[in-house]
């Protein structure tokens, strides 16, 4: 192996070794025995070796392979990768806890996160595949022929990647800490070493293949305990997702495993599962809308459509991706309802460990607990890999290779991509080691940022030819600015931006996103005359590609090459 390749590879390996020296007394995370656990550790190490091995076998040598897996992934594979990309450690461990605490209202997260894929499919997926390049900022930058739009989109991509990935590292760190008995710091380094190693070795091809394996691990780990648990709760144990209905109906009448509840407790339990017991109609709709447009606007999910063979597979992979995601979201409420059945009065401490304590309740043994933790680890790693890949591509491809050094070679761009993957990983580690108190809220706001900034610009970029760089910039600046304003208002505890206000920071898109659309349309029309012929030609050329329109007539043959990088 050449020395140039060795240097970036050695860094993550050193991180892993470094982590080994930092073994310390494990943090108290779950109410299970602390210290090094041999069998779960063997299971997890074996799976980690598989991930790195797959990454090594899928080694790539060109930029297309690194960023978009050589565009050779099929519909099941890409569907599993979409699902795996999507299911973070938070989805894996957190949704059931959320449903446990929020009851019916929490279902808004499930329909928000799944319904967004329908929007993505109808408005974006096939057209983006026809564009056929590497990143979302690249699409926006080329479509509007504007580096400011490109840089803004790239910055938003990086912000989303960093905040989202930092939260994942926190989860991964806690799991490693529990299995290996490491300190939190050591386990964050350990996890970072693993994820960086296989991303640097393989790029998107390895990440995509690993995501397929990780999907199988995480979904099987998630679903197997349900069969045992539902039998313990009195079900037949055939299809738990359809068997928990009577238990839920019983809960609404105050029937729980531990005998009768007091009238007050029974009322509280009933309130949890009634429609507006834990939130009102406006809050529900605002949450659902924000999560939907946010999901459809997340760059690391959109980038998936560049990795498939053709647009037909792009469409079908959304269908399969949604089905694979559905398997998890049909199962999460079972955990929540069974949790309430056995422990109706538990608070956040019960909600936090609802998944990881399940195998213990089901008597599945220590090996299974290891497998489940590996599943959660797989969920976190796959999401982090997808995020870092999207973030690094935004910097290396859209900042460096397109704006800063358009004359750079393919090899240099690939090297810069690898360097920035590692740099982003280091930034994420630093944040994960000292997570700000509000990290969970900031992550939730990633959906608002994506939905308010990226989604309107991409949809109008595809479906409205008059949309131009002025309109796109106005819409994006409004969306980004308002999301930041709402975040600041939330942090400063201003009621208007709070959970019960009119513009909740985590659900701001119901108001901000439609205005971003309107602003984009309005400003584009007002500034229509200011758009240069050359820019309009470039936009037309992209629109022809997106909508399979015929090429211009020969006498109008002054359409420049859209692949050539330009500045404004």
């Amino acid at each position: 192996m050449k020395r140039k390749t060795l240097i970036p590879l050695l860094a993550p390996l050193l991180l892993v070794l470094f982590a080994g020296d930092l073994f310390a007394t494990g943090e108290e995370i779950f109410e299970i025995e602390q210290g090094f656990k041999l069998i779960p550790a063997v299971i997890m190490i074996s799976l980690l070796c598989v991930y790195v091995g797959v990454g090594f076998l899928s080694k790539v040598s060109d930029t297309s392979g690194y960023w978009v897996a050589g565009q050779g992934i099929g519909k099941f594979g890409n569907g599993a990768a979409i699902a795996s990309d999507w299911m973070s450690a938070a989805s894996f461990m957190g949704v059931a806890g959320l449903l446990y605490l929020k009851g019916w209202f929490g279902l808004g997260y499930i329909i928000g996160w799944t319904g967004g894929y329908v929007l993505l499919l109808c408005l974006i997926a096939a057209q983006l595949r026809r564009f056929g390049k590497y990143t979302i900022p690249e699409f926006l930058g080329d479509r509007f022929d504007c580096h400011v739009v490109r840089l803004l989109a790239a910055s938003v991509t990086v912000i989303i990647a960093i905040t989202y990935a930092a939260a994942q590292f926190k989860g991964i760190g806690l799991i490693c800490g529990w299995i290996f008995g490491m300190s939190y710091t050591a386990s964050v380094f350990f996890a970072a070493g693993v994820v960086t190693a296989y991303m640097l070795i393989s790029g998107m091809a390895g990440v995509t293949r690993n995501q397929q394996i990780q999907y199988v691990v995480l979904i099987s780990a998630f679903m197997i305990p349900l069969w045992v648990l539902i039998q313990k709760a009195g079900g037949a144990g055939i299809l738990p997702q359809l068997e928990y209905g009577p238990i839920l109906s019983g809960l609404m009448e105050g029937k729980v495993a531990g005998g009768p509840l007091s009238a007050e407790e029974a009322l509280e339990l009933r309130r949890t599962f009634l429609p507006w017991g834990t939130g009102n109609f406006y809050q529900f709709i605002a949450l659902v809308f924000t999560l939907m447009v946010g999901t459809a606007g997340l760059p690391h999910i959109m980038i998936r459509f560049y990795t498939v063979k053709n647009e037909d597979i792009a469409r079908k992979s959304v269908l399969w991706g949604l089905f694979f995601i559905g398997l998890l979201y049909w199962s999460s409420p079972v955990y929540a309802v069974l949790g309430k059945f056995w422990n109706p009065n538990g608070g956040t401490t019960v909600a936090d460990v609802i998944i990881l304590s399940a195998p213990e309740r089901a008597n599945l043994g220590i090996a299974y607990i290891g497998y489940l933790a590996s599943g959660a680890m797989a969920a976190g790693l796959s999401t982090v890999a997808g995020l870092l890949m999207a973030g690094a591509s935004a910097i290396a491809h859209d900042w460096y290779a397109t704006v800063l050094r358009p004359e750079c070679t393919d090899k240099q761009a690939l090297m810069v991509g690898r360097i920035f993957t590692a740099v982003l990983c280091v930034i994420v580690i630093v944040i994960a080691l000292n997570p700000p108190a509000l990290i969970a809220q900031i992550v939730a706001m990633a959906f608002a940022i994506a939905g308010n900034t990226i989604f309107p610009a991409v949809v109008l970029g595809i479906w409205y030819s008059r949309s131009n760089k002025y309109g796109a910039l106005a819409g994006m600046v409004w969306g980004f600015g308002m999301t930041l304003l709402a975040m600041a208002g939330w942090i400063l505890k201003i009621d208007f931006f709070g959970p019960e206000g009119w513009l909740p920071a985590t659900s701001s898109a119901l108001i901000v996103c439609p205005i971003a659309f309107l602003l984009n349309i309005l400003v584009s029309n007002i500034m229509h005359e200011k758009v240069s012929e050359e820019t309009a030609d470039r936009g037309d050329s992209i629109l022809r590609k997106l909508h399979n329109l015929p090429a211009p007539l020969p006498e109008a043959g002054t359409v420049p090459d859209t692949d050539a990088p330009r500045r404004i």
Partner: protein
Amino acid sequence: MAAKERVYVNFFRPSSANMKAEARIAAIVILFWALLSYLLPLCIFLAGMSDPAGMGESFFTRTRFLGFPLHYWLIAQGCTIGYILLCKLYCLLWDRKVSRLPR
């Protein structure tokens, strides 16, 4: 000099046969998506307005479907199953209407 003819793309007024077919399919699926995502919660909201406690007790919360309170099943499983079927519908319609058009 006459102004150059520009590409015209508008979701609501598609210009080519191909685009027309794509936009029509997308519009149909988005319509069903909106009904599922917003009309359904609205129905649950309107039906529950008579609940004096303001928690939305109604026909939806009292009816049982497969053992589930109907309002819970509709959102927890009905909507997500609906979204998957909508994706399937989109792919089917596309194969029938768009893929057969000459390029």
